[in-house]
């Protein structure tokens, strides 16, 4: 009985110390220090990013002196209303590129889920050993700064006034724009039939365009009908050409006798700005060894483009459209700043490509067209 009290006091003290350690983030600290491999260090960091636990993720960096916390968050969470700000990290995978006793390079593939589908982001992260734990050296984010300037823009815009409901029959109306499909090609893919081609606005007013296709079997009966959805530039200015792509999953070309194309064009309000230059386009390989078309987008006007979609059309030696691919850019296009992009090209299509053309669909929060 005499020795019970000191033992009781020691046990209670130990419990209280333990609780205080947990409360003060000791577990996290332990986890951090217990990243015993580069793989664990990167996985723990990305897990925190996935949870949007920025404090804990930032604490895992080895170079907090170089990287500001806000810049780190902006690098991963997005800014300027770009696509990343509407995305969440769905999954990731990590694998080593190089490793030694005290440093390593890990390649991480981040798959973000967004309103326009999954977006992949592949990064190489340098990881170094500090004491017994591994920590990630986060690449210092480089954000383009737009210098103060005045960019003169002569805005050109079309508005449409149609026939009123009270007007008599026969009272003059404005006709829908004249658009034409200039090419169409049915392409067999392993799991689908894909219709690719181009459509041109031959009119002098902007057109809101949609292309639909119906596959017909040898009896002339429809097999399936699909539209171009977002694989087209819906708003076509006068004389502008847009590629289109229509996918028919689960259908093989041998089932198809003919294709019925249908292009619909409507008048709609539109703006001629912003103008986006597509620079430094070239066929290349990405870090995963896949064929891509690379380039950079330069917003030549003074208004920020929040979300940009790249549409690329590829031609063979005869000038025939053989493929159309697209990709969303997860960074906003600030005025006069080059933003890189890369869109996938299928392995079997890449060797046949002789020429290509890139078009940019743009969406601004303050302006929809």
């Amino acid at each position, binding site marked *: 009985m005499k020795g019970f009290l000191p033992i009781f006091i020691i046990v209670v003290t130990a419990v209280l110390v333990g609780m205080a350690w947990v409360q003060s983030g000791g577990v996290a600290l332990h986890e951090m220090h217990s990243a015993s491999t580069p793989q664990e260090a990167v996985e723990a960091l990305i897990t925190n990013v996935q949870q949007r636990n920025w404090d804990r993720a930032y604490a895992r960096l080895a170079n907090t002196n170089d990287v500001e916390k806000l810049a780190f968050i902006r690098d991963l969470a997005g800014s300027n209303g770009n696509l990343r700000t509407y995305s969440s990290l769905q999954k990731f995978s990590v694998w080593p590129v190089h490793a030694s006793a005290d440093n390593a390079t890990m390649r991480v593939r981040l798959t973000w889920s967004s309103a326009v589908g999954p977006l992949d982001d592949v990064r190489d992260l340098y990881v170094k050993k500090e004491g017994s734990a591994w920590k990630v050296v986060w690449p210092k984010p480089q954000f383009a700064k737009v210098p103060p300037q005045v960019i003169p823009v*002569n805005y*050109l815009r*079309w508005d449409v006034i149609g026939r009123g409901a009270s007007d*008599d*029959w*026969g009272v*003059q*109306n*404005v*006709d829908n724009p004249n658009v034409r499909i*200039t090419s169409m090609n049915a392409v067999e893919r392993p799991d689908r039939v894909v219709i690719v081609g181009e459509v*041109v606005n*031959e*009119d*002098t*007013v*902007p057109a809101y365009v949609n292309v639909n296709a119906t596959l017909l079997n040898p009896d002339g009966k429809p097999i399936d009908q699909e539209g171009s959805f977002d694989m087209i530039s819906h708003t076509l*200015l*006068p*004389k*502008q*050409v847009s590629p289109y792509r229509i996918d028919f999953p689960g259908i093989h070309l041998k089932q198809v006798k003919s294709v019925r194309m249908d292009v619909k064009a409507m008048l709609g309000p539109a703006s*001629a*700005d912003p*103008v*986006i*230059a*597509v*620079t*430094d*386009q*070239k066929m290349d390989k990405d870090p995963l060894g896949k064929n891509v078309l*690379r*380039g950079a987008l*330069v917003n*030549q006007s003074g208004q920020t483009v929040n979300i940009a979609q790249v549409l690329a059309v590829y031609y063979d030696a005869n000038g025939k459209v053989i493929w159309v691919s697209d990709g969303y850019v997860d960074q906003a296009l600030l005025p006069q700043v080059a933003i890189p992009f890369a869109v996938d090209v299928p392995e079997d299509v890449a060797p046949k490509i002789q020429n*290509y*053309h*890139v*078009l940019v669909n743009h969406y601004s929060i303050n302006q929809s067209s």
Partner: protein
Amino acid sequence: MFRLTTYCVLLALALAAYGELHPPAQVTAGNGFSISSTGQGDATFYLIGPSHVAKRQVKLGQDIAVDSTEVKKAGRYLAIACGSGGCSRSAFYVMAAEPDKISFLLHPSRVPVKANDAINATAFVFDEFHNLVLAPVMVNFKVIPKTGPSFTRPVKATRGVAWMRMASTPKEGPVKVIAEVAKASEPRIIQQVASDACNLRIKATRTAKGVLVETDPVRDCSGNAVPDGTIVSFTEIDGQGKTTVDAPIKKGIARTELPVSGSARISVASGVVMGNEISLGGRL
């Protein structure tokens, strides 16, 4: 013989009670008229038209007056008189009145210059009650271009419709087309727009950031200015790859600034029309 005579007398008496209606052979819409009747006694008169039905009590053997408001619509009418001996009926047609209104369709609302048979004008002739005038009448299409003399083309309407086709003029701008018949006239305006660009040419000037490329004023083969907003595609190929810009024409000229490193080739196109090509060496 006695029996046959009895039947004839009874039939004559029945027809007298039954009555007959005799409307005019031709009636013009909006004009009142009378329907003569035979027989005797009271009857209920019905007038059934394309958009109107009337019912009233009449006396057989007297003229039945039909008001002008009851025959506004052209078409087949049925007059019925029902007396004690049964009903008799008679059909007649009401024709459209004189031309008074015109509905005019001018298609399309925009047309490229110098396009053959591109403008289609169709006029429908109606009377004051919106009946299609089926009788042949002459419709005058008066064409007033923005520049040049105006002219009139008379076209005879067949079964209420008169139409013509004509080519657009070489000069852009609005064309007023007026369809006239009797005292009615309907104006429409069609916009003649420039055709595809012709002799598309670019020139380049070095700037601090690269090369400023701009077109000469973009015109079609008739010398009309291609409308602002028309897309002109610039393509530049150098050692860094390819650069493309789809720039709209503004104030008659399309321009863009291209980043050029070393020697480069710059070409231009608008729709399906190709322009000239510029080769840049170390210097312009």
